[in-house]
């Protein structure tokens, strides 16, 4: 059995959990190709025009996968922390895809709602596992393996690695090099959703470009759960969406920490939650610090040169401010 996982949305959060899990169940995991223009164009064709780029892209990934797999993994992610939900598009995701793209294979659209109980993630995996095998022991073993891999992955991210850097280490079992942070370089917090930041095509190579400029980059995934939780108490009212909250809390963390020289918020054109997230970060930055903030909005028409120019200018400004240019 070939299970298809699209390389977008929750992929960068969960892939190291799903891969060993499905392999433990005896399935073969097929991942869609790295995002590219053809994929996005295909997605734009299939999706309602009002949707955001990540959702359009997802439709492209699903189209690329549908003839190559026996079953598609598109779970309905409702809550990942037991408190907040995800953006409505995640909630309606399997339905949007099913009614937009024809001739799809079977879809695993089980609901993951951690509001139900603390162990909901494992119960969810168990329910999914039962579609593959009747052998309960095998499912449990697959969950165990997956869990182990997943916690290693999270540690690697906290260590300052991006998913692209962490994935090969998970495969080889190697330890990461000592952090190559250089003392005088500037440090930037790049805020945004994993599917915008770590998808090189969506972010028009932003992280790579920053590293080329000798910038040390930190992201929301590099802030510990404990620190995020602390920040969740600093706002009179938190947002309602899992990823948005983590972006805001990470912003709060870096603002208070005062170790970053600047912040970049990456957001998708027409992203509903980000209209709130972005202004909230702006207001927090204005009230609580002197840290410069730049927002980059991306959509299917974003050109690499435009972003490159803005990023360069921003980095130069920060370097000058710090006196290293």
């Amino acid at each position, binding site marked *: 059995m070939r299970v298809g996982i699209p390389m977008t949305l929750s992929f960068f959060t969960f892939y190291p959990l799903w891969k060993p899990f499905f392999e433990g169940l005896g399935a073969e995991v097929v991942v869609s190709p790295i995002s590219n223009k053809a994929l996005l164009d295909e997605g734009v064709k299939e999706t309602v025009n*009002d949707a955001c780029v990540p959702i359009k892209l997802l439709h492209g990934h699903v189209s690329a996968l549908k003839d190559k797999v026996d079953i598609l993994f598109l779970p309905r992610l409702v809550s990942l922390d037991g408190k907040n939900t995800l953006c409505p598009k995640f*909630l309606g995701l399997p339905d*949007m895809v099913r009614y937009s793209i024809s001739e799809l294979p079977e879809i695993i659209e089980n609901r993951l709602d951690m509001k139900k109980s603390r162990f909901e993630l494992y119960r969810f995996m168990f329910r999914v596992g039962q579609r593959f095998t009747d052998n309960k022991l095998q499912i449990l073993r697959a969950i165990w393996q997956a869990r182990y891999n997943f916690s290693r992955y999270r540690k690697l991210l906290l260590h300052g690695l991006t998913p692209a850097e962490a994935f090969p280490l998970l495969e080889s079992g190697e330890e990461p090099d000592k952090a190559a942070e250089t003392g005088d370089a500037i440090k930037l917090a790049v805020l945004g959703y994993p599917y915008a930041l770590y998808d090189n095509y969506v972010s028009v190579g932003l992280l790579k470009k920053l590293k080329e400029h000798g910038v040390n980059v930190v992201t929301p995934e590099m802030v510990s759960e404990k620190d995020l939780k602390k920040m969740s108490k600093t706002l009179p009212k938190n947002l309602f969406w899992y990823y948005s909250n983590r972006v805001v809390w990470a912003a709060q963390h870096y603002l208070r920490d005062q170790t970053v020289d600047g912040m970049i918020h990456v957001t998708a054109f027409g992203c509903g939650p980000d209209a709130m997230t972005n202004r*909230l970060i702006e207001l927090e930055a204005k009230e609580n610090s002197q840290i410069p903030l730049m927002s980059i909005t991306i959509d299917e028409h974003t050109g690499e040169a435009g972003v490159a120019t803005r990023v360069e200018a921003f980095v130069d400004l920060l370097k000058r401010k710090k006196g290293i240019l």
Partner: protein
Amino acid sequence: MKISFPYMGTSHIAISYLLENLGHEVIYPPKPTKKTLSLGVQHSPEFACLPFKILMGTYLEAVEAGADSLTTSGGFGPCRAGYYGELHKRILHDMGYPVKMLVLEPPLMAPLTFYRNVKSLVRPTSSWTNFYRVFRVAWEKLRALDELEGLLHELRPLAVSKQQITKTYERGLGYIDDAGSVSKVLEAKDAALQDMRAVPVDETFTPLKIGIIGEIYVVLEPFVNHDIEKMLGDMGVYVHRSIFLTNWTKDNAVSNGEKDIRAMAVPYLNQLVGGHGQNSIGETVIYANKGFDGVIQLAPFTCIPEIVAKSIMPTITRDKGIPVMTLFLDEQTGRAGVETRMEAFLDLLKEKRNKQEAI
């Protein structure tokens, strides 16, 4: 407290009665205009939805007019409107208006906050018994307003003079506005309904029937939707609106109602997606089953729950044979454009009906 609140349809008649009789000075913001909108757009995030921008503009006009407190509804997502009160407050504070924001959170979700805010509305200017009395009158007014509007939608396509029915309705609103007790409200309502029924109608005419669904604010506030119900009524269409303020408040704030609507949505979308998204699906199915000619979905630009719903609509149209037109509204939307699209949609529905009659 010099208090103000946002407009939504005719609800200001009931809300201002409530606040005034609790002893507050009500600052009436002008009804939303182009100026309100442009003021709001200027100070709102670009991708916030139209309701956010209009409310932003309304608040700015209200604080300019001297309001020191604002009251609005809250919520806990996944629709972002639940965060609007909080963000509006922060933007206003950032602009240098130290205004007090009373966000009425759903009583069942945040009983303490709800109580505290209601208490600051009630006291020290009034007593709880007075509050109960005034609240009942306001609620009765809301119900009367909804009833009047329902009848207006029924009569408008049939009325010989569209102007006359509109005028009579507006006079009726005045009766409700003037009434000061529950029994007076009921009397006023009956009088208004009677007046409206007395307007001459053309009984032989069978209007097209269209259901209006979508996000509550753009459905209820005529300024935002270019008075689409009047537009359609004047074109001789019977419009049935899925949301009225009283049923919405009862179903969403107090009890967990609307189960039957949601049940109809389940085959297509088995998940609450916030806002009115799942309802929009369920209501479309219901309108199809009731033999309506078409459905118009109204939503603010970038409204995600409605985008999710929209992506599912073509399948319902195919399954149930009901045409659905979606209008995403933003500050760029012009009346002429809406009108043209309406006319085209009506032509399509008429042709469909003629074909069915021919068979």
